C-alpha cells in the first residue's frame, strides 16, 4: 500500500528538483543559456541549496514519523526531544563566543550541543526505558536549553552578535554551500539508517508498551536507538539550517492516511514528502519579493504549520484522526 505514495513522491521530486534550480531572484531559462553566471548560480548556489533542502527535509520527516510512532502520539514532533534546542544552544554559543566567524565551527558547536542533549536524555530516561519519563526529560531539556539560549541572547557581547543569533535561529537555507551538504549528509543518512532499524519495534509499539515487550521489543535498546537516530538527523539539520519547525509534525500526518498506518510504512513516504515540502518552501522563500532580503524558511514553515496544527487539533477533538 505504501508503494503508490512512494512512487508518486519520487516522481514529484524528480520534477521539482530541476525546476527548483531555475527559480529564484534570477530566473534561469533552460532554453536560453545566455543568462549571465548561469553555471555558477546553478552549481554553487542553487544545487547545494536544493540538496540541503532534500537532506534536511528528508531527515526531519523521517525523525517526525519515528517520534510519532515511538510516542504513539500524532502530535509528537522531533523538537520534543530537546535535541534541536540543544543544537541551537550550541550554535548560539558559537555566535556568543565569536567562533561562528569560522564557518566550520558553527555546525561543530551545534553538533556538540545536540550530542550533549542526547547524552543528558539518555542519562535521565535511559534507566527504565519508559516513554513517560523520556518525554518529560525531553521537554525539560528543551526548556532548559531554551532558557540558556535566551540568557545568551540577553547577555550578547555586541548588538551585532545578537542580531546574528536571532536571524540564525529563524532557520534558513539561504547562502548555504556544498560545505553544509558534506556536514549534514553523512549524519542524516546515518540517523535515518538507525531509524530504519527500529521500524519493526515501532510497529510493535502500536499495541502499547507491555504488548510490544511481549512481541520481543527491548525498550532500552529501542530508546537508545531512537535517541541516536533522531539526535543525528535533527542535530545535523539544526547545525546547517537552524531551527525548522513543523516539518516533522505535518509531514507524517499528511502521509499517514496514504499508508496502512503502521509506523514502519510511514518512514519512507515521510522522508520523501519532507524533502519535497522543504524544497518547495525554500523555492517559495526565494521567489517571494520581500524588502530587505528573503523570507526565512523557518518563518515560512511556521506560518503554514501553525494553522495546520490547529486544524489537526480540531479534527482530533471530533475524533477523526
Amino acid at each position, binding site marked *: 500500500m505504501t508503494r503508490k505514495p512512494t512512487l508518486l513522491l519520487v516522481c514529484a521530486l524528480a520534477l521539482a528538483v530541476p525546476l527548483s534550480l531555475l527559480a529564484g531572484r534570477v530566473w534561469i531559462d533552460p532554453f536560453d543559456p545566455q543568462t549571465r553566471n548561469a553555471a555558477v548560480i546553478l552549481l554553487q548556489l542553487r544545487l547545494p541549496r536544493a540538496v540541503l533542502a532534500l537532506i534536511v527535509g528528508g531527515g526531519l520527516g523521517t525523525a517526525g514519523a519515528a517520534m510519532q510512532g515511538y510516542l504513539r*502520539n500524532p502530535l509528537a514532533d522531533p523538537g520534543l526531544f530537546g535535541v534541536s534546542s540543544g543544537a541551537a544552544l550550541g550554535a548560539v554559543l558559537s555566535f556568543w563566543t565569536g567562533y561562528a566567524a569560522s564557518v566550520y565551527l558553527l555546525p561543530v558547536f551545534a553538533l556538540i550541543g545536540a550530542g550533549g542533549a542526547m547524552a543528558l536524555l539518555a542519562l535521565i530516561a535511559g534507566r527504565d526505558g519508559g516513554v513517560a519519563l523520556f518525554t518529560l526529560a525531553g521537554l525539560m531539556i528543551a526548556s532548559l536549553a531554551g532558557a540558556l539560549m535566551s540568557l545568551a541572547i540577553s547577555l550578547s557581547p555586541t548588538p551585532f552578535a545578537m542580531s546574528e543569533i536571532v536571524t540564525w535561529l529563524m532557520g534558513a537555507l539561504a547562502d548555504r554551500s556544498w560545505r553544509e551538504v558534506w556536514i549534514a549528509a553523512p549524519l542524516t543518512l546515518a540517523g535515518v539508517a538507525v531509524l530504519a532499524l527500529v521500524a*519493526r519495534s515501532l510497529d510493535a509499539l*502500536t*499495541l*502499547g508498551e507491555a*504488548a510490544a515487550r511481549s*512481541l*520481543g521489543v527491548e525498550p532500552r535498546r529501542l530508546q537508545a536507538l531512537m535517541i541516536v537516530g533522531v539526535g543525528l538527523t535533527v542535530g545535523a539539520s539544526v547545525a546547517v539550517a537552524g531551527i525548522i519547525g513543523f516539518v516533522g509534525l505535518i509531514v507524517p500526518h499528511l502521509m499517514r492516511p496514504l499508508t496502512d*498506518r*503502521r509506523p514502519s510504512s510511514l518512514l519512507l513516504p515521510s522522508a520523501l514528502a519532507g524533502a519535497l515540502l522543504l524544497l518547495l518552501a525554500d523555492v517559495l522563500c526565494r521567489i517571494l519579493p520581500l524588502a530587505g532580503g528573503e523570507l526565512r524558511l523557518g518563518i515560512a514553515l511556521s506560518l503554514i504549520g501553525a494553522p495546520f496544527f490547529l486544524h489537526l487539533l480540531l479534527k482530533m477533538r471530533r475524533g477523526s484522526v
Partner: protein
Amino acid sequence: MSSSLALDQVTVTGRLEAVTAKLNRGGIKAICGPNGAGKSTLLSVLAGLLAPDAGCVRLGAAQVDRLPAAERARQLGYLPQAPEIAWDVSVETLVSLGRLPWRGAPASEAQGAIDAAIAAMDLERFRHRPVTRLSGGERARALMARVLATRPDWLLADEPLANLDLAHAATLMRRFREQAQEGRGVVLVLHDLATAMNHADRVLVLHHGRLVADGPPGHALSESVIREVWGVEARWLGEPGARALAIG
C-alpha cells in the same frame, strides 16, 4: 514440544510470595483473586515481562526471563489488560503485528498464519476494516487474533473478557477452548468467578500475593475458599458447567 511453564518459589517483592506451580499445555488455566492479589503480576512473570526478585519461571528447561526476547515472544503470546491500538490500522494489519517475532520467516508462512488467525477468530468480514470501526467484542477478537498469528505455544491473557457483553464473552471463551484443544497452553486472569468455574480446567487462587488454592475449579473455588479469600458468603447454584454464584 510439550514444554510446560513451571513457577518455582516466584517472589516479586510486595506483590507475589513464593508462588510454586507447574502448568502443562492443553486445557484452560484461570488465575483468580481479589483486586490487588497479584494476578496481573503473576501473568507478567509467566510471560517473561517481569523478572522475579527471587525464584524462577521455566519454560521447558529454559529460564523465561533469560530467553532471547524474540525466542520468548515466539513461544509466549501475551494479551495485556485493556490493550491499546495507537493507530487506526486495519484488522489484517493489526493481526500481522503478531508476526513481528518471526523476522525472516517466509512471507507465505506469515500470510498463512495471519489468515488462520483471522479465520479462527471469525473476522473474515472485517479483514479490511479499520479497528476504530469495530465493536468492543470484534476488537477483542482482533487483538486475540494478533496473539494467535504468532502461533505461540502459550496464550496468556489478562482479563480478556473485561468490557465484553455476554454473547461476545461466550464466543471468546469458546475460541480459547478451541485453542486449548489444539494443544496450546491457555492461562487467563479472570475476574468473574462463574466464568472460571464453568470454563477453566484448573484454577489458581491468589490472595495477598500467595497461592492459596490450586486445582480443579470445584475445589479451588469452593464456597469455603471464596469466604476465606474474598470475604463473602457465596453459594454455587445450578449444574456443573453452568454454575452461577449467589452472593449473601
